[in-house]
């Protein structure tokens, strides 16, 4: 009788091989086909991805179009409210490349954070909020680029529900009619980190800060690659397409040493409600299952992630853990901030590092960035604002990189 035993070495070799998936054998139906069928029936409008775009491969081998410009920036309330350097970095990158985009005021958040935290809403309300935002983008002609990981995941799931349930579509259309808006669904739901991913080589071409001596751990955002998992980017060149490629692809392009750790797949502990009103859970999980594991296993210089909640949780949870003598003290940045930093963005005018809680100064020093000098510049800005000499910092002041390529 043949043995079913598989030697460990063979298992490891199999795991090391890149996964090349055939989209024809995908275990899920391609939602976009159903979307176009609904459009043909006159049920909704599909907002096409504008050119130029880059095609990437997603989990089951399908192609996804990522627009480069003409984008409508669906901002994140957590980023804009509590980590403004995150949003500023995304916009700064677009400005550096001279890309056409809109930062709209006709936008609400997805309100998904509240829904996941308190359930004080319902399916139709959530779908209507999404559809109102998508219609607002469509009216401008610009394509939605979603900044928040939760908005991205929530909208992917909501899109699926809208496609599969006629009763939801009818109800949402009734509400949109009242608002004088059409029912529009984008051809692709695109997260900004996917834009960063496809731009990574162009970003690396303009890198002015050497990062080759930096070690980073990646925390992938649950709502990016676990909700409607087939929509996330996978690349045979990155983790052999066995994990999502976003964030890691950027760091590798910038020459950063990406160090693996054993709890890579774990959530950060955000919890939506927990991070606001029950933080014992959030702090414990963030420290015990993420930060301390990274410290013990690879001792990184920074953690890089691509969502609002993850940056908040992993950064803010470290202070209290210090009081318990836990192994903490790793600065946490978004991929957009790292990309902007590599291209010479000002650490305070653009990256807004003063909004971060965990000490980022050792990282700045290791990167050779004279943060004290730039902090002085920023203090002069603040003093001028306090004296009423200027209303605030403008893009004209923030655009200029702190270092120029040799």
């Amino acid at each position: 009788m043949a043995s079913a035993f598989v030697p460990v070495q063979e298992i490891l070799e199999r795991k090391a091989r890149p996964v090349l998936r055939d989209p024809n054998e995908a275990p899920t139906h391609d939602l976009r086909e159903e979307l176009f069928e609904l459009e043909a029936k006159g049920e909704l409008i599909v907002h096409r991805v504008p050119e130029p775009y880059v095609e990437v491969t997603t989990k089951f081998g399908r192609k996804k179009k990522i627009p480069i410009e003409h984008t409508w920036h669906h901002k994140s309330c957590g980023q804009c409210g509590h980590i403004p350097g995150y949003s500023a970095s995304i916009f700064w990158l677009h400005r550096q490349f001279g890309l056409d985009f809109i930062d709209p005021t006709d936008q609400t958040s997805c309100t998904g954070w509240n829904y996941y935290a308190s359930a004080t809403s319902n399916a139709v309300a959530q779908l209507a909020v999404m559809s109102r935002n998508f219609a607002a983008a469509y009216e401008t002609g610009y394509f939605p680029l979603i900044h928040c990981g939760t908005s991205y995941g929530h909208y992917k799931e909501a899109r699926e529900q809208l496609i599969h349930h006629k009763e939801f579509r009818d109800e949402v259309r009734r509400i949109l009619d009242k608002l004088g808006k059409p029912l529009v669904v984008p051809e692709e739901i695109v997260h900004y980190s996917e834009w960063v991913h496809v731009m990574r080589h162009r970003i690396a071409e303009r890198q002015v800060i050497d990062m080759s001596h930096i070690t980073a751990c990646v925390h992938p955002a649950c709502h990016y690659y676990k909700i409607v998992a087939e929509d996330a980017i996978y690349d045979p060149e990155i983790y052999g397409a066995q994990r999502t490629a976003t964030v890691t692809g950027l760091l590798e392009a910038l020459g950063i040493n990406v160090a693996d750790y054993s709890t890579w797949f774990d959530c950060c502990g955000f919890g939506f409600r927990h991070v606001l009103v029950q933080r014992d859970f959030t702090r414990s999980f963030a420290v015990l299952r993420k930060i301390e594991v990274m410290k013990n296993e690879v001792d990184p210089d920074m953690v890089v992630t691509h969502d609002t909640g993850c940056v908040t949780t992993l950064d803010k949870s470290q202070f209290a853990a210090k009081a318990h003598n836990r192994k903490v003290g790793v600065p946490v940045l978004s991929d957009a901030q790292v990309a902007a930093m590599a291209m010479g963005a000002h650490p305070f005018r653009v990256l807004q590092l003063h909004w971060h809680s965990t000490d980022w100064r050792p990282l700045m020093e290791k990167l050779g960035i004279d943060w004290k000098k730039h902090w002085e510049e920023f203090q002069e800005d603040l003093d001028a604002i306090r004296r009423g000499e200027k209303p605030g910092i403008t893009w004209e002041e923030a655009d200029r990189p702190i270092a120029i390529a040799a």
Partner: protein
Amino acid sequence: MDWISAKPTKYADVPYEEKLRLFMEVKNDPRYEDFLYGCYECGICVSACPSARFYDYSPRVIAQTMAREDVDRFYEIMVEDIWNCAQCFSCVRCPRQNNPGGLVTLIREVAVKNGLKEARDVLQGYSRVIYKVMLKGNQVSPDMLQPDFFPDWGPWVREFSENMHVWRKAIPVDTLRGVTDAAWRTDEKTLVELYTIWFETDNVDIVREVDEGLYELLLDVMEEALEEWQEEVA
């Protein structure tokens, strides 16, 4: 009586018919069939679940209970377990394509909509967030970062709080610059459209079940804004 463990049923004071009514409300949600396909008891969802590491909580038990239609156990879950879920959806790696996190969302919705005491209790202290999201369309804003609420985030919060107005002006993004009571500057028309959505979907009434005072306040502000907007448009 729980026929499997032969333990007395918990919450025996709640009539079975009431528990069944709540269960059917969950089951009749159009999304229910997308979230539950049966359960192997493999435990993959539990191994991935952050809450299972810190609480007496199991997404597997939730999927199992719903699949078995165990109404008494369902009620226990509704009262004791659902608010432990982190809604990260790590559990959706289920080989049967179950979505235990999604089931939790549905059960929470029914718990809130029916004004269960446990739901009201757990959301105490959360009202200011609901206020913000309903009126501003943003979950969080800079002015919510107060040292009393976030002492565990370190001295940074106090420093921020003292400098909030000037720090917010020192952001180059036009839609953020100087805004402290919301995450970004939003058009009045956009907010009126949002309020219309809350009314048209009965979302306002859901808030009433959680916090009557907040409901009255929201109603006043939103109705006034809608009236003013209608006058302006006319």
